[in-house]
Each structure stands twice: as C-alpha cells, then as structure tokens.
C-alpha cells in the first residue's frame, strides 16, 4: 500500500468531505416547499422506485407538519434518510419535475426530503410501531437497505425478524460504500437503528453459507446480500501493493479518520461507473495531486450519471478515454499503468491504481423457486441504487406477509 502521508490539514479534509448538498435552512425549505405545484399523479412520485408521495410530503412541509411529512416519506421508503442524500434525483424525482418543462429549476426534492426526515433523527421521533406478534419468523440475510427495508415492514406486520450480516456493522453499502461527501456512516447507522428499534434481531459477523438451516428453522427467508468483491482486471501487476479495489478504498475511508486512508500522489482509477467516480473524487479530496479516470471506451460510453461526471471534472479529476489497461508497472510498488490507445501503447505514470470495474456476484446458492425464499437489492437487480433496494425490500415484505397469512399490504 501507499505510505505517503496525506498532505492536507485536518480542517481541509473536513471541508473536502463535508456534505456536498448542505441542508436547507427553515426559510429556504418553506420557500421551496411553496414553489411545489402539488401535481396530480405527480411525475416525481412515479419516477421514485418507492413511489413516495412527493407532493404530499412537500405540502406538509409548507403547512409546518414536519413529523407528518417525514411519515409520508418513511412510510413508502424506510431508507428515506439515506436516499435524501445519495439518490440520483437528477434522473429520478427531480429529473421528472414538471418545472423542468417550464424552463425552471426543478423543486429541490432531495433537500426537502432531508429537511423533513432530519427532524426524525434530531428529535428521535418514533414514527412506526411493531405489529401484534403473529408467531411467524423470518430470516433476512444481509443487513443492507433491501434486507432492512424488508425487516422494517415485516416487524410492522408483527412477524419476528432475525437479520444475519457478515460485516461488523449493519447498513451494507450505506454504511460502507457511499461517497463520504454524500452520506456519512453515522447517518446511515442512525437510520438503521430506527429500524432495529422495532424489535429486529441483528446478528453481525455471521456469514451465511447455505440457506438450508435457515429454511429449516424460519417460516421464510429474504436474501439481500448485495454483490461481492470488485472484479479482477486480469492483467499483469494487479497484485502489486498500491493496487486496491474501489470498495475497499472507500470502506477504509469511511471507517477511519480521513488521514489514515492511504492515497497516492498520482492516482489512476480504472472504470467509469458511479463507483469509479466516487473513488476518483475521494482520492482527489484526500489530497492526491492528480486523480485520473482511465476508461477503455469513449466519453459517451461511460456508465456513470452525467452529473457524476460533471462533479469529477469540477473536482479537478482527469479523464483518459479509449485507454485499455494492459498491465500495472512497478517493482514492489506501482510505478505506472500501461494502456493501449488508438495510437499505440502508452504508460500513465502513477503510484496508486484503484480498480472500479464492477462487482462479482456472490456464490451463495439461492433456491429461487422455493416459495419461502425471496430476494431483493443488488444481488437480485445486478446492482442499482439504495432506493431500488429499499423498494424491493418493501415489495418483498408484502409478499412474505401474504405467504405468512397476512393481508400482504
């Protein structure tokens, strides 16, 4: 690994990792809420995978009922706190806002959602209660957004829930994998705690190797195990010290004081998805002199969202398109990345390589045809947003409730 000291002061690091979208003041929230047209069959609500009734929660902000507003949000989406910070709203609710068609800025839905839901964490409001005990037991594998969204609604239906989590902390990628300037682990964990407080039994540090024993002792099983480790490049030199995968890099950053995460002076990130952007921006914000995305295809082929690309450019990150990594150069440490370009082979000098070319599927065998087995989140959808995982967890809870004799609502 890199042992170069982080060149930035603690104050600068705090600034670099502060919320990229700071919360609205009360004034700004009221003004914004009153701009909402309160559309019927609102495009923002349709665009949200959890179908939060956006006009209803905004109307409640305007009428000063923040608790009621938060309830509308969290009723639909148990991960309303993290989604307010990390959702790609530009392509979801805000992208769908009708004001875009009036050549105006859309309503700041994410910030309004944060405004309403922050009150729940600040005042420790308890908005939901567990349902009367049904005597049914459900095992949930994976304490990420999918599993815990499912857990929350199962508890509200009165089913006993035990969640098995391999990591020491719950929350999945919310805790370990979202860019620090979007969502901090303490918010993710507070959000999780609200769900656990409904009486969810959580067993951390437990890796489930087979569903058989769970199916023997539980009435249903929900699998929300996400995806596995980052795919390997399959090129020479990728085991050199100084080559790390993006998820490990980000996880380390999120679980340690900022200056304890090693960052190179010249960092190359391989890949151009949203995780690659998270890696390159955070390398830059940690103090790398240069942080460059290296991508084998062209600018227009990048899988990351457009605004993520803009953010990385704004952060001063570099981009090398049509550059296919051939091997990592170095003797005991990274010295460069050899790439093949349209004009031949070229070496990009660097002392750190972060790999962000997607995650592998996990090996756990899931008997998907078993009527008592349900899946959701990244392991089911191939890797999407928190809001998709939450939506799938909520939907699964309805189905599980129906299977267990409930009304399936």
């Amino acid at each position, binding site marked *: 690994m890199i042992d170069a000291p982080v060149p930035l002061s603690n104050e600068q690091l705090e600034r670099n990792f502060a919320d990229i979208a700071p919360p609205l*003041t*009360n004034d700004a929230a*009221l003004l914004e809420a009153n*701009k909402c047209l309160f559309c019927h069959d609102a495009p923002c609500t349709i665009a949200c995978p959890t179908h939060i009734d956006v006009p*209803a929660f905004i*109307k409640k902000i305007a009428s000063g009922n923040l608790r*009621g507003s938060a309830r509308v949000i969290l009723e639909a989406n148990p991960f309303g706190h993290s989604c307010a910070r990390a959702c790609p709203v530009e392509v979801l609710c805000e992208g769908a806002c009708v004001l875009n068609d009036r050549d105006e800025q859309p309503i700041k839905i994410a910030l309004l959602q944060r405004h309403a839901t922050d009150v729940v964490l600040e005042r420790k409001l308890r908005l939901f209660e567990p349902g009367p005990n049904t005597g049914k037991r459900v095992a949930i594998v994976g304490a990420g957004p999918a599993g815990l969204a499912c857990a929350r609604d199962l508890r509200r239906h009165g089913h006993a829930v035990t969640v098995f989590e391999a990591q020491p902390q719950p929350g999945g990628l919310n805790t370990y994998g979202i860019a620090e300037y979007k969502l901090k682990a303490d918010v993710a964990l507070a959000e999780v705690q609200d769900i656990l407080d409904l009486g969810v039994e959580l067993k951390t540090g437990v890796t489930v190797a087979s569903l058989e024993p769970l199916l023997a002792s539980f009435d249903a099983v929900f699998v929300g195990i996400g995806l596995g480790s980052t795919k390997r490049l399959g090129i020479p030199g990728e085991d050199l010290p100084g080559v790390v995968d993006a998820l490990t890099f980000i996880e380390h950053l999120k679980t340690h004081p900022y200056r304890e995460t090693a960052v190179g002076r010249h960092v190359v990130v391989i890949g151009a998805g949203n995780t690659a952007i998270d890696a390159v921006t955070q390398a830059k914000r940690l103090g790398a002199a240069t942080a460059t995305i290296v991508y084998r295809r062209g600018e227009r082929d990048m899988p990351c969202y457009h605004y993520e690309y803009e953010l990385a450019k704004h952060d001063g990150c570099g981009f090398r398109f049509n550059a296919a990594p051939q091997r990592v150069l170095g003797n005991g440490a990274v010295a460069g990345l050899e790439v093949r370009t349209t004009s031949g082979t070229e070496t990009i000098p660097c002392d750190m390589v972060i790999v962000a070319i997607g995650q592998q599927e996990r090996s756990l065998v899931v008997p998907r045809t078993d009527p008592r087995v349900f899946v959701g989140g990244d392991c089911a959808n191939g890797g999407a947003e928190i809001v998709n995982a939450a939506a799938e967890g909520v939907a699964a809870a309805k189905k599980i409730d129906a299977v267990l004799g409930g009304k399936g609502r």
Partner: protein
Amino acid sequence: MADLRTNFAGIDSPNPFWLASGPPTNTYGQVAKAFDQGWGGAVWKTIGEPIINVFSRYGAVDLGQNRMMGFNNIELISDRPIADNLKEIAEVKRNYPKHAVIASLMVESKREAWHEMVKQTEDTGADGIELNFGCPHGMSERGMGSAVGQVPDYTCQIVEWVKEVATIPVIVKLTPNVTDITYIARAAVKGGADALSLINTINSIVGVDLTTFEPQPSVAGKSSHGGYCGPAVKPIALHLVSAVAGDPVVKIPISGIGGIASWRDAAEFIALGAGTLQVCTAVMHYGFRIVEDLIGGHRTIADIRGRALPKVTKWEELDLNYHLLAHIDQDKCIKCELCWTACEDGAHQAIRRVPRNNGGPVVEIIEEACVGCNLCAAVCPVQDCITMRQVPNDYAPVTWKEYAAGKGKLAPRSEQFHTATWGTRA
C-alpha cells in the same frame, strides 16, 4: 390516526372537515369520491329552482408565483333539476351512512315554497339543512341569497318557516356583506337556527383587463360583481367567526368557512370557536386529496376548540403598558435593508443605517424611537431574524378604558419623532 369524530349540532361525522357548498359538491360522483378520500361531510351545492349559468364564471388573483391567492365567482346555485339532486343526496347518504350529508337550500321567499323544499329534502335522509342566505351575486338580484341574509327580519322569518317543518338540524349560512354580522346571527338564532356557518363569499370585482377594460370574469365583454373567497379572505372569516362565537346571545355551534387550505388554517378557526370546517376553493385548486393534510396535522381537536376566543377582546381592554422593542439578530441578517425602508418611510424612523463595511451590521434599532409596531418583523424575509421582545417596566397594566377614566399610570414610552427636514438626519 387521531380520533377526530365530531358531533356538530347533533350531526355526526368521522371528522370535522366538510366540503362547503359549491362546485365540488355538485354531484354524487364528486361527493362519494371525496368521502372515499377522507372528507367527513359535505354540504351539497345549493338546490333550488334550476338556474341558467353564464359561460366564464370564475376570476382569480395571483400573488407573485402563487396562483389563486384570491378567487371569485359569478356562478349561481345548482343548474340541475331538484329531483336529480335529491335522488343523489339520498344515494350518498345510503352509501355513506356515517358521513355528514347536508342539503343547502335556496328558494324564493314564500312560506309554502320553503315548506315544500324542506319536506322533500328530509325524505332523502340528509343529516341537516343549510340555508343559503349568503350568495352575494345573481341570486340576490332575485331576492334570495344575501338579499335575505342582509336583513335580520327576513333571516328570522325564513328560519322560522323552515323550522315549522324541519325535524333535522338547520344551519344558517351567513353573508359577510353586512355592517355587523352579529345582528344577522342573532336573528337566525331568534328564528330557531340550530347552527350557523360562515362566511359566504365577499362582494368583489376581481380585476380589470387593461387592454379591453373588461372587468373579470368577462362575459361577452361585461362582468358583474361576484363572491370572493380563497386564502385572501381567511382573516375576514376569522374575525367574523370570532365575533359570532363570542357573542353572548348566539351560543349555537358554528361551522367555519373562508380560505381554509391547510390544517393550520383549520386549527385557527377551531381555536376561535368553530365546530366544523368547510372548504371549497382549496379543493377547486388542488382536489379532494388536501383533506389528508387537514386530518394529518391534527392529533386532537377538543383540546384547542375555542382556546383563542377568550383572548379576543375590545381595543379598549388592551394593556397600554405592555412595551415591545424590535430586536435584530445580526447573525441572521442578510442585509437587504427592507426593515429600514419600511420603518423609515412607513413607520417610526426607528432603524439606523450603518455604512456597509467589513461585513458588520447595516441596520440597528434606535431603541428610544421604536414603538414595537411589528412592521420590521413583518417585512423581514428571514425567519426569526427580527423578533419583538418585551421591555419590562415597573408600571401596572393599564387599559385605555381605565386610563380614560383617570385610573392607572402610563409607563414612559418612545417620544422621538422624525420632525427634521429631509436630508438632515443620518
């Protein structure tokens, strides 16, 4: 969810939020949909001999980006046959037995006509009758609506006729287009009314098109005064509800109407003595779904009912020794100087400008000149930046009534007035 069940003058409803008589309560389909979405009751669009409406019936006043801050109409009562309306009222009541279904009536001022209408209405199973003595346009030219509600004797007389045959509660809907609404309210009580509802709409011309010089809403180039409603009229309605609710003679339940759009509006009416709330314009703007906000904002209603009423008093009962001083939170100030302009030109010249430098304060209260009027706080665009703080003194409270009678002493107050010539003052 909170238990908001309400009994109003003997009429039960799952909550106190009723649709006011108007376009949203014109048909079975509308009222049934509204009940499905959570409304506790509905006052049917006023029934009488079917009328013929003009095309173009509504006008609106926008305030900046906000549409329909005020709204007016020149629409008349129901244009549907009486029999159709009564049939649908019966059907709604049959299918929604727990909801309040009120028939609003307006017929010509003849005893037999009212008797006949009331009897037919009672056959529907409706929970109550609302007498429309309020519409200020069109019908009033024919001796109905506010033409009745503006004359205490007429009001009393027709209520008496109705009560001769009615066995269900009778609510009298009052017009605000009078000099003192308590006279009309007392007349309704004298006639035997079981409850009052107020306010109906306020006489208005909503605007003039300056290219055509046609008043709005225009009907073939001309217009007529119409009934004004919407958020703009709420303060007038609050006052009139408090006047009637606080009247020592009236003492019957009041259904509050006028600009209610959110649970807060509703709570204010309840605090001033309203038992149920009626909503029309906000539904015409945003649909029946707004009831969700009305219901969702309340945990209880009993706890706030009438709470503000004892605090409404005559001016002569207010304490002259209660002194306030404006306070500017300089950390919150965004330096727009709107407060300075307002105070300097529109009030008491009690704010001092400080030259802009170093990011320091640009406005300061001149304490010896401030009369605590609230204007600066009202114009300030930042929440809680300018607050009014009480300045304690050693003087006992004294009202004008007492002071004028030679009792009590006035505490020393701001005496500094801006009498200097323009330009000579900093």
